[in-house]
C-alpha cells in the first residue's frame, strides 16, 4: 500500500503479476487509481477484471495485504443467520471492535431499510438485500471501496435506483467498480477504463462529461454507450 502526497491511501499499484491455474492474467501491469473518484473498469467476461479487483483487495496470493478497503461483490454476502442490522456491522463484530449501531441504523434508513433492521436477510427482496450490502460497505468507512459487478443480479429498474444510491453514498471515496455494463460504467464513473485480455491491458479510457450519477436517457451518454460497445466488441 502506498500513501499519496495528499495523505489518502492510494489504490494505485505497479508491477501487478497475476497467474491463476497456470494462466497469466496480468504481467507487470501498472494500474493507477484516481483519488476520491469512482473509476469504472469495463470489460467482457473472462478478461480478468475481477482478478484485478481481487488483487487490489489483497485477496490473491502475492497481492499486498490491505487494511483500507471495503469490498462489495455481485452476491450480497449477507449472513443468513444474522439480522440486517448485525450484517451491516459484521466487520466490527469480526474484528472484535465496538459496533457503531446508531450509524448502521442511520445508514439503513438512508438506503430505505429503516423498518427492516431486525429482519433476517431471507425476508428481503434481491434489491433490498443489495441495499443492505451497500450499507454494510459504507459502514466499514474505508477510504477505498472495491466493487465487483455489485448490481449485476438486479432487474434494470432496481439497478438504476441502486446506482443512484451508490453514487450518492460513495462521494469522496476512492472507488474501483468492475462491470460489464457500459451504461453502468458511464452512469457511475468519473473515469471509465475499458480493459482487454488476458493478459490484462487498458484498451481505452474516457472521462464522460458531468458528474455521476448521470442521466441514463441523456443523448450524449447514449452516444458514448454506443462507442464503448463498439470498443468492447472490438477488444478480444
Amino acid at each position, binding site marked *: 500500500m502506498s500513501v499519496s502526497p495528499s495523505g489518502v491511501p492510494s489504490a494505485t499499484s505497479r508491477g501487478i503479476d497475476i497467474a491463476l491455474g497456470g494462466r497469466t492474467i496480468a504481467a507487470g501491469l501498472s494500474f493507477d487509481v484516481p483519488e476520491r473518484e469512482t473509476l469504472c473498469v469495463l470489460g467482457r467476461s473472462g478478461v480478468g477484471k475481477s482478478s484485478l479487483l*481481487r488483487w487490489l*483487495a*489483497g*485477496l490473491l496470493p502475492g497481492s499486498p495485504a*490491505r*487494511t483500507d*478497503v*471495503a*469490498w462489495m*461483490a455481485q*452476491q450480497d*454476502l449477507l*449472513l*443468513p*443467520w444474522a439480522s440486517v442490522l448485525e450484517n451491516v456491522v*459484521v*466487520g466490527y*463484530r*469480526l*474484528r*472484535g471492535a465496538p459496533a457503531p449501531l446508531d450509524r448502521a441504523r442511520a445508514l439503513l434508513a438512508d438506503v430505505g431499510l429503516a423498518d427492516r433492521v431486525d429482519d*433476517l436477510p*431471507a425476508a428481503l427482496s434481491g434489491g433490498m438485500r443489495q441495499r443492505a450490502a451497500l450499507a454494510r460497505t459504507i459502514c*466499514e468507512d474505508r477510504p477505498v471501496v*472495491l466493487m465487483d459487478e455489485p448490481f449485476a443480479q438486479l432487474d434494470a429498474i432496481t439497478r438504476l435506483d441502486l446506482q443512484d444510491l451508490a453514487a450518492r453514498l460513495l462521494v469522496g471515496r476512492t472507488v474501483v467498480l468492475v462491470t460489464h455494463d457500459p451504461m453502468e460504467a458511464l452512469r457511475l464513473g468519473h473515469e471509465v477504463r475499458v480493459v482487454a485480455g488476458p493478459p490484462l491491458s487498458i484498451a481505452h479510457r474516457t472521462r464522460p462529461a458531468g458528474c455521476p450519477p448521470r442521466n441514463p436517457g441523456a443523448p450524449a451518454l447514449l452516444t458514448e454507450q454506443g462507442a464503448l460497445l463498439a470498443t468492447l466488441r472490438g477488444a478480444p
Partner: protein
Amino acid sequence: MRGVVTAIGLFAIWEGFVRFTELPVYLLPPPSVVVDLLWRRADLLAIHAFWTGLEIVLGLLLGLALGIAIAIGMAASTEVRRWTLPVVIVSQAIPVIAIAPLLIVWLGYGLASKVVMAVLIIFFPVASAFFDGLRQTDPGWLDLAHTMGAPRRAILLRIRLPAALPALATGARVAAAVAPIGAIIGEWVGASAGLGYLMTQQLARGQTPLAFAALFILCLLGLTVYFTIDRLARRLVPWIHPTGDRP
C-alpha cells in the same frame, strides 16, 4: 393420521394371517398377544427400556460432543487434522460388532461398554458432516471477512461455524437414527439389563411374544430419539426452511 391408519391396517393383516395359517406363537405371535404382554409385563419392559434408553441418550450426548469437538479441532488446525483423521478412519474401519466383545472384557457388563459402543457409532457421522460443512464455507463470505481484517478465530466462530450448522444438523439426524445400534449390539454380546438383553433371553426360552414386545418398545424408543433430535436440529438452524416446509 394416515400413518396410524396404515399401521392399524398392517396389524390387522398380520393378525388375520397368523390366525388363518395357525402359525405357532413362538414363530410369529399375533399382535393381540403382543399388546396383551405390553400391558401385563409393563413393569419388566419399563426397567429394561430405561437402561437401553439411558445408554442411547448418554451415547448420543457424548457422541455428539466428541463429533463436534473433532470437527472443530480439524477445521481449526491442520496439525490436529493430520493426527486425528487417521484415528477417526481406523475407528470406522473396524466394525463395532468386532470390538464389542473386547469392550465388554475391558469395561464390564454394565452401562459403560454400551455407551462407548454407541459413541463409536454416533461420533463419526457427526464429525464427518460437520467437518465437511466447516470446510465448505461460501468463498464469498471468506473474501469479505478477509477484506474486513477478521482474525482466523473470528472467521471460524462467526462465519464458518454458523454456516456449518445445517451440516451438523444433518449429521445429528443420521446419528440419532443409528444411535440404538451400538446399545443393542452391546446388550447382545453381554449385559444384565436392557431391551437387547431381554430379547436374547426370551428368544432363547421360546418366549417370542415378549421379545416382540421388547422390539416394539425399542422401536418407540428409536422414534422418540430421532424426532427429538430432529426437532432440536431444526431449532439449531431457524433461518433454513426446507422446500415444501415453509411456515
